């Protein structure tokens, strides 16, 4: 069985290699080849899963050592895999949702001449993402970590001819690199602290290290998670990343890659458990982001950007839960999986809408689409109900648990975190209802585009609707399946550990409060967008709305401080390089030149005057020698 683990990565990697190097002759079958290999990876994952279920909780993890990667002195990095329940959960989510989105892309990218390359990149992403979750040490995880970053870069910038796409891709990669810096420093710290960075030894002896070191490692891991999972303060790339094709947004920027930060923190639970200060930082980041993303999501008129704000906010929930320690890990991952279903479904729905609307993304130009796209409407609607936490749907179970756990943190902290999570739930209900109403209800508002083409909304082809239906079923049932008998809790507990929190408020109270804020959020949204027609041009809005439209001015801040400041700095350095560093050398050269100009007068060209100076010199030397001897 262990031998199969490598194949999880190998299958999509092979696909990427073949599709990217294969050339034009693969154009006709490339997309099916890519989909097939993604499905193969999923099937292997399923076989491993079945095998894993056959063993009892403690013996479920599989280890396999492929080869020694970088052996230098005490530094030993291996290519070795570890497949435990946590990794398995991710593998199934990644390859499962991944396969569905491959299938969806077959239809969505049908008219793109570079479709083969698109599938190559998607396969590359799958390989890197699976590698990330099955690596058995942090350095190999780092390979996957940057690998998904690369795939994300390539896919965001897939339509490279658009300058905005190219810029967004670059921005995503560079912001992520800031996070990666955190991860590499964390690995270095682990190496100097423990002499290794393999999961097993590091996590089992985390308790022996000093708290200061552990806090430092934890904060660096958090920085990494912030970059990859678009958490404040490194969240600015996610909104721009929506320049990529919609299947990419669904797969990478909603369901899988952006949740890697949650995986990292959960995986490193042993470190965080022993470093309470780092945990406080994690929950703070999570709480701030869940509000930040939600507020941004309220103001966007671009359907994908509204969903991106929502993604940010939902991952904030997960990070918050992961930061709570053993009372939250399981729920973080559970919300991650359910979110994978409903958010991927929502994005695919958005893609389906755009497909039918000539790639229009402005929700103010939609309206009343439920009549034209019934399948999209139903699947999107199920995703909507799931994300706002409608009772019985998957989001209800997972989000409710997180809010409960936040209160259970105890003390003032617990009240603040719980309050933030509740407020977030209200805002979520508001902005998602807004998206729903603006897109599918009300009057039709679409207008001909610049070329005079009137959009003709229509239902998407089967390759697109089937994945949407499957994901919608997941959004509908996953939460309930996971929660009956605490199935999910029992499944993950051997890996992440679990502790029951002692909430100051009872579970029932939390659920009732959650329902109450949900109703309030929906009601406000309905009063604004359901009762009144939606204006086709966005009103000026309040100060907060305008700031939220601009991602709460974070980009402006980056632009002024980092971009402008950086430009000034590099320009100054170029000047310094030219005038000071080079100038010092040139100055020396000029000085020497001047001196030799003087000396040159002695060179009059007459052989006899040279001879005189020679004789003079010789005479002086001899005289000096004699004098020295005499003295």
């Amino acid at each position, binding site marked *: 069985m262990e031998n199969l683990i490598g194949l999880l990565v190998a299958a999509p990697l092979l696909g990427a290699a073949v599709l990217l190097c294969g050339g034009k002759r693969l154009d006709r079958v490339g997309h099916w080849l890519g989909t097939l290999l993604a499905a193969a990876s999923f099937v292997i994952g399923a076989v491993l899963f079945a095998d894993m279920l056959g063993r009892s909780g403690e013996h479920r993890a599989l280890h396999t*050592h492929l080869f020694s990667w970088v052996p230098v002195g005490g530094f030993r990095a291996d290519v070795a895999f570890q497949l435990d329940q946590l990794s398995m959960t991710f593998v199934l989510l990644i390859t499962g949702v991944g396969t569905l989105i491959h299938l969806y892309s077959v239809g969505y990218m049908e008219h793109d001449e570079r479709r083969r390359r698109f599938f190559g990149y998607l396969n590359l992403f799958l390989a890197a993402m699976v590698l990330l979750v099955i690596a058995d040490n942090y350095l190999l995880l780092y390979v996957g970590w940057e690998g998904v970053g690369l795939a994300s870069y390539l896919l965001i910038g897939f339509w490279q001819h658009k300058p905005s796409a190219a810029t967004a891709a670059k921005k995503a990669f560079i912001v992520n690199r800031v996070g990666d810096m955190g991860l*590499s420093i964390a690995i*270095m710290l682990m190496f100097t602290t423990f002499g290794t960075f393999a999961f097993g030894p590091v996590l089992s*002896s985390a308790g022996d290290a000093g708290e200061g070191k552990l806090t430092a490692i934890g904060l660096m891991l958090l920085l990494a998670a912030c970059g990859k999972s678009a958490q404040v303060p490194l969240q600015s790339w996610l909104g721009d990343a929506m320049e990529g094709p919609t299947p990419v947004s669904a797969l990478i920027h909603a369901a899988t890659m952006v949740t890697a930060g949650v995986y990292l923190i959960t995986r490193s639970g042993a470190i965080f458990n022993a470093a309470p200060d780092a945990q406080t930082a994690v929950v703070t980041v999570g709480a701030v982001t869940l509000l930040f993303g939600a507020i941004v999501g309220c103001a966007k008129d671009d359907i994908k950007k509204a969903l991106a704000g929502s993604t940010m906010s939902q991952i904030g929930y997960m990070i918050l839960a992961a930061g709570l320690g053993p009372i939250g890990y399981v729920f973080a991952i559970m919300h991650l999986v359910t979110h994978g279903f409903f958010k991927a479904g929502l994005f695919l729905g958005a893609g389906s809408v755009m497909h039918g609307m000539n790639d229009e993304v402005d929700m103010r130009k939609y309206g009343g689409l439920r009549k034209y796209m019934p399948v999209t409407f139903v699947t999107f609607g199920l995703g909507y109900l799931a994300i706002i936490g409608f009772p019985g749907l998957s989001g209800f179970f997972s989000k409710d648990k997180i809010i409960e756990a936040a209160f259970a943190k105890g003390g003032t902290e617990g009240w603040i975190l719980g309050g933030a999570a509740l407020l977030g739930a209200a805002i979520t209900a508001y902005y998602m209802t807004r998206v729903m109403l603006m897109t599918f209800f009300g009057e039709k508002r679409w207008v001909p585009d610049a070329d005079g083409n009137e959009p003709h909304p229509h239902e998407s082809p089967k390759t697109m609707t089937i994945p949407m239906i499957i994901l919608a079923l997941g959004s509908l049932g996953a939460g309930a399946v996971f929660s009956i008998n605490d199935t999910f809790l029992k499944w993950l507990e051997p890996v992440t550990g679990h502790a029951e929190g002692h909430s100051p408020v009872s579970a029932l109270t939390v659920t009732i409060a959650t329902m109450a804020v949900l109703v309030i959020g929906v009601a406000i949204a309905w009063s604004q967008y359901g009762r009144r027609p939606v204006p086709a041009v966005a009103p000026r809005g309040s100060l907060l709305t305008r700031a939220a439209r601009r991602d709460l001015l974070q980009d402006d801040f980056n632009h002024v401080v980092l971009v402008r400041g950086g430009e000034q700095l590099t320009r100054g350095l170029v000047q310094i390089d030219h005038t000071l*560093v080079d100038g010092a050398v040139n100055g020396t050269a000029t000085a020497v030149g001047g001196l030799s100009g003087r000396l040159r007068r002695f060179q009059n060209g007459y052989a006899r005057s040279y001879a005189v100076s020679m004789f003079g010199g010789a005479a002086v030397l001899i005289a000096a020698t004699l004098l020295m001897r005499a003295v």
Partner: protein
Amino acid sequence: MSFPLLTVTAAVPALGAVATAAVPAARRTVAKWLALLFSLATLALAAVQLARFDTGAAGPFQLTESHAWIKDFGVRYELGVDGIAVVLVALTALLIPFVILAGWHDADPLEEARPNRRWRPTQGFFALILLVEAMVVISFEATDVFVFYIFFEAMLIPMYFLIGGFGDRAGEHGEEETAARRSHAAVKFLLYNLAGGLIMLAAVIGLYVVTAHQTGDGTFSLQEIIRARADGRLDMASSTERLLFLGFFFAFAVKAPLWPLHTWLPNAMGESTAPVAVLITAVVDKVGTFAMLRFCIQLFPEASKWATPVIMVLAVVSILYGALLAVAQRDIKRLVAYASISHFGFIILGIFAMTTQGQSGATLYMVNHGISTAALMLVAGFLISRRGSRLIADYGGVQKVAPVLAGTFLVGGLATLSLPGLAPFVSEFLVLVGTFSRYPALGIIATVGIVLAALYVLVLYQRTMTGPVKAEVRAMPDLKVRELVVVAPLIALLVFLGVYPKPLTEIVNPAVKHTMSQVDKTDPRPDVPVRAATDKDASHEEASHEEAEAAK
């Protein structure tokens, strides 16, 4: 007497240079094939060296040759390779065929400009490249300081002519201005390196005087000096040692180049053709960093430790400074040059971190940087030759018209920014870990370099390859077969060494261990050492290592 493999490896390209230069003017193509043939023969010899190199051998140097040369001054013709040298010889021998292939048409005489029948620029170009190769190879192999010095300096002559004599076809400035800039760059290159070399000459003579004074028998032999120091015959006063160290280090720091002695590199790389730029940064400059490891540290261990803090800071400054300046460049080649300065900062950082990871990483870095810069620069050269401009602003949307060119350029760029999975990542991470374990603050500052690397590479890629297609590049052809033959193996090698660098580390590790023992340094121990339970061999090895240390 056994077969003098090391001499032959250096002699073959030298012979090739003579043969190529002797080809008649009209037979340009013959000269090219001849040069390629000789460079491939050298590659084969380097491969034989690698194959015959025994990683488990006891002594530091292998395949040694030793003959008396100038008896009166104790100069011996001594060659020998350790794991570091043999790898760098292989790198040199590997890159030269690609340089030759990439520069296939760079020295073709223009039809309208043919002063006379005997004018043979093509022959000269390839002969000079082979000559440089011969000198670089023997510099890596020399274990006698004097022999090393001779070839270290002599290398400047062919390089001077390569930089000053051959450049890109007149670009935006017109024929005359381009030629003036080129000769300015060549003179700058020569002056900087000569200044370094002359100071080193003084130190070389000083070394001889010191050894003659103390042991009674002046010598330039590295092994002899190490032996003399080990048994106490040689005990330099610390002030003497420091002066001599500085003399050597200055020359190598100019060559490497280390901030603030770097300004010749952007000029030289900017004005020369892409293959020559590769020759400078990927091959010739490596002699500087290599010599720091072999001569500075092994000859003057105490002084090395004394100078380490300053050098480390300069190296970190190089890393950030080079990267920041690369971001601001408007010229593709100068951008790559500043990126190289940043990378050389990493190499020097690794060398002077004095940890196994740092020095092994630095050695791997030399190899990987050679390959990745060659890939990036040669593709940039193909791009520049198509459009006739080095300015980034003159490009845009190339990806659409020449996807293979853009793809290979991206891979070269990703290697430059040390993407995991490609070879430079392994070395960069080792250098950072090695630095961090002794100097955490410097390690963290150096890590900022990886963000800046992403910035300059991706900005370059974005501005040249993406966006709307510019009118001037609309008719740009994609890579030709010859060009693909140059790039594809380099990329394959980058991937291979990124995934499986073990063959290299196995050769390099013993040599680094030996170098570390010269300076009497051991790696810092982790705070909370944990035993890897799954890897039995490894834990056994570690245990024996600990025992050895306890015995000390």
